[in-house]
């Protein structure tokens, strides 16, 4: 299936990846090739086949709703690009 450049732009926006204008042509070409390859699937007869999400058909295990972890905020924030007063800093969102 061919995919248009503006569609790649929309997908990149959904994925929050900036693609430079001079690269969008090549990225579109590559993605088109990959989608062309995976399109072989459309010929498969999968009517009534249960989709497989987990190779052992396992379901999510639940644990008791108890506090088991200690608070390690300082260790986790020590590796953050920008923190202040125990909070992660990002550019101003609300004017």
């Amino acid at each position: 299936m061919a995919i248009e450049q503006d569609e790649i732009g929309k997908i990149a926006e959904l994925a929050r990846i900036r693609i430079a204008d001079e690269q969008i042509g090549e990225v579109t070409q590559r993605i088109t090739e990959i989608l062309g390859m995976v399109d072989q699937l459309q010929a498969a007869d999968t009517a009534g086949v249960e989709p497989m999400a987990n190779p052992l058909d396992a379901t999510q295990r639940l644990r008791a709703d108890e506090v088991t972890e200690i608070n390690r905020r300082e260790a986790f924030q020590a590796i953050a690009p920008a923190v202040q007063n125990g909070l992660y800093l990002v550019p101003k969102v609300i004017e």
Partner: protein
Amino acid sequence: MHNQTVAQLAQGLRDKAFSSVELTETFLQRINEHDANYNAFVTVDEGRALSGARAADQRLASGAASALTGIPIAHKDIFCTEGLRTSCGSRMLDNFVPPYNATVINRFNDAGAVLLGKTNLDEFAMGSSNENSYYGPVKNPWDPTLVPGGSSGGSAAAVAARMAPAATGTDTGGSIRQPAAFCGITGLKPTYGRVSRLGMIAYASSLDQGGPMARTAEDCALLLNAMAGHDPLDSTSSETPAEDYTANLENSLKGLRIGLPREYFCDGLDGATDSCIQAALKELEAQGAELVDISLPNSSLTIPAYYIIAPAEASTNLSRFDGVRYGHRCEDPADLHDLYTRTREEGFGDEVKRRILVGTYALSAGYYDAYYKKAQQARRLISNDFSQALDGVDIIAGPTTPGPAFALGAKSNDPISMYLEDVYTLAANLAGLPGMSVPAGLADGKPVGLQLIGRHFAEAGLLNVAHRFQQATDWHTMTPKAGGAD
């Protein structure tokens, strides 16, 4: 010392032929002397390795040692190591020093193994040649103009060049088995859920599995003994009890039924590779195994199903890299949107971006049923093929790869031809089955891997076949001559 197996080195440590410090120094020196030729390691912390070795020597002296106590192990740089940079081969994590250990790392620590260093890989384990690393490609020790395979190419090259006695890898679509084949070593991808994924940086969560890479099946069994088992911190970890994977190594192969999928022996398989595999199968037959023709009729769906499911899961997993909590962050973001999009533009390489985009597309509104759901249905068909085949045979055997290692740069500009490299390995991940690659000869001087695939949790059976094969052959003892590795 560097040419001995883990089993031999463990005996040497017990016999006090050498200490863990001496052993660790030997391998650190080999890394210093040879790794400039191969680029197998991203990070080596000599101080940390030697302090681990000193602790292991004390433990050996106290008599409380386990089989791996004092053995230096290299870890794929996808396993989080507390206080030691874990890059995943990406600029995104070039500055990432994890605040915790992967469960696999904790288990090796508990066993008293020495953390020798962190090995190079395709960025976020996405690749089949180890050319996608932010830290540059790894070179194959058999011939530095060839790729080592990927994504666990650094681990495979480190073991092949005798810069580590053994290593860990991860395998989402062949990333342990294919580099093991290309570098002439033994690698095992366990059953999905057999080895904890906690702290193993996620690529495709329903396919990812960690496993051992070493020179022999016996060494892989020793490593798997340390790695396998339930982890309550990984919700997909299996509760099926782990075994002693060394217990059945010597079992006879008499009466073992080995299925040969005819779809794995047709167009696209290199002739010299095929000859090696045929000779290997004859050896197994000579030991009493019975070769049985089988079919996996949905094999042609494997590559397209994988290249939807894996990118879809990757697009979800890699959304966590946002420049806010850890890892790379772009300079002077204008606003939050700019922070996200530019951080991810700069932090991810081309192949990672491609897979995120394909996955985002496959999961997006209007395409989900046509792509993602369809791929999951194809996955069921592929898995059913294996269930049916494994009702009639004990294991499945065939080539690990369509041909031996290819030249650096030969496929790096053509993602599709790179994807076809995984044609024989992807299905075991889709079906969650254990798979191994065992050295089985040389094609034009390049190593060839025999692949073995078993039923769920049949790792001991695969290791048994591989060990018996290695008792009768010497392909696994061959050392690459390039770069003074032997």
